[in-house]
């Protein structure tokens, strides 16, 4: 791995510090991470870790994924995950059909015990979700209204050149990491990653989560409909969470690679040194 010191390679079109480059930021922006951004970053970080952990525990109880509205141990699965003993289905009574017609849906009774920690798992998941939805919603509002997204997250028209993108991609492939700027001056791929997380993956995880709520979908039926049913929403919820966990892994690797101490100072104290 190569780490370039801050201030080197002045030809890189992405600024590391607004004092060095006019591209990085405009009128009156601070180089530092704003206090409200730092605050919400850590609340959402704690919430996400709790959601990922409790979500995994919930998935262990029924580690089968389906598409559509219906899915259970008596119907075929799209995907079976060997993450708990429950994926082997346990023991069931002989299935009996509901109707006399051939191919009738059946009923069978579960005779064995299964792994199920959803009592605390679900309550912890929804408690943590409040700390994603409320600060996350505030972040989206403030980021839109205050110009944070426009200034720092959404790539500028001038940035989206073929040359700049090629350089960004080759740098990443060769693992050339620029030193931390200590503020919201992001590279092009970094902006893409943050935009996908902020505007797509996290909202998708929240919406598919709400689409699994029987009370919320009774009031807002389109929520379930837009994802093609409860089980489709559950499968997309899982896919979004996998994407977010992968992002978290790359994010932490990049924080370490670009200067862990400086990045942590920048995201906690707001001190870019």
């Amino acid at each position: 791995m190569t780490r370039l010191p801050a201030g080197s390679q002045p030809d890189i079109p992405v600024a590391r510090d607004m004092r060095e480059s006019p591209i990085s930021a405009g009128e009156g922006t601070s180089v530092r991470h704003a206090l409200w951004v730092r605050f919400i970053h850590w609340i959402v970080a704690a919430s996400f870790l709790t959601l990922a952990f409790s979500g995994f525990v919930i998935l262990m109880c029924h580690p089968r994924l389906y598409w559509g509205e219906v899915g259970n141990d008596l119907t075929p699965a799209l995907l079976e995950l060997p993450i708990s003993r429950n994926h082997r289905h346990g023991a069931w009574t002989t299935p009996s059909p509901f109707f006399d017609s051939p191919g009738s849906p059946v009923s069978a009774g579960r005779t064995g015990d299964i792994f199920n920690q959803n009592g605390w798992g679900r309550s912890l998941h929804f408690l943590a979700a409040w700390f994603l939805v409320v600060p996350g919603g505030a972040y989206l509002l403030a980021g839109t209204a205050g110009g944070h997204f426009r200034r720092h997250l959404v790539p500028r028209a001038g940035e989206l050149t073929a040359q700049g993108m090629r350089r960004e991609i080759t740098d990443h492939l060769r693992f050339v990491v620029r030193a931390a700027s200590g503020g919201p001056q992001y590279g092009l791929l970094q902006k893409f990653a943050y935009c996908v997380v902020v505007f797509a993956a996290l909202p998708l995880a929240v919406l598919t989560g709400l689409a699994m709520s029987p009370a919320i979908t009774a009031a807002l039926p389109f929520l379930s409909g837009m994802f093609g049913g409860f089980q489709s929403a559950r499968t997309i919820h899982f896919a979004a969470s996998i994407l977010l966990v992968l992002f978290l892994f790359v994010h932490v690797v990049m924080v370490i690679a670009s200067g862990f101490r400086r990045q942590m100072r920048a995201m906690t104290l707001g001190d870019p040194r």
Partner: protein
Amino acid sequence: MNPNFLITRRNALITGLASVGGWLLPGCSQPMPPTYGNLLRMGDNLTYAAHRALLPGQSLAREYRPGDVSSFPATGTLNPGDPDNPNASEEYRRLQQESFAGWRLVVEGLVSRPGAYSLADLKRLPSRSQITRHTCEEGWTAIAEWTGVPLSRVLDAAGMRPSARFVSFYSYDDWADSIDLLDALHPQTLLAYGMNGRDLPVPHGAPVRLRVERQLGYKSMKYLRRLVVRDTFDDGGAQGNIRNGWAWYTGI
């Protein structure tokens, strides 16, 4: 200017907090599920309060077509009359042997006409059929047609008192649970005696189970034996959700 009328930041803050407190205090006297200081139960209560404040109270859960009826696992107790069952009920076994002819649903508490309803009594009341999705807390779903009497009809027949707030349920397999009046009077909340056009099978809660369509499956108690109308929250004790580590409100 009289300094007493200066609106300082501190005064504004104190006045603001006091008025918020005054607004919250009557809220404290409203019956809410107890949290026992447990953070998870506080989260459950927050979700419950938010649902009740933000969602329309009488919106219907989606209903499906007959062709959507699916295979349906039976979980938990499969037969309370089975002597191998840890919660085996001798009384249930006797009722089952005579096809539930002697079964009675006891209705008591804050009602002017407490009583016991036979299966025939319930079937004489207006019935409703609905094809709905059962959403299990484990993560699976299934669709079935349920036929029964809306709980609101039974509460009407029993003469529910105006002070009623919750309806508690008790089952032959020793569970206790309750729902608030918004769910109890919901048009899709049934005392169901039929499933997919036949009598309710024993593994699915015969002779009568509850259907609460806007909450998770475990609120739809099987093997009903008694219901009690109350004006305060009752956690069901050792047989209830909360003491067993489960959320009482499961609209999510």
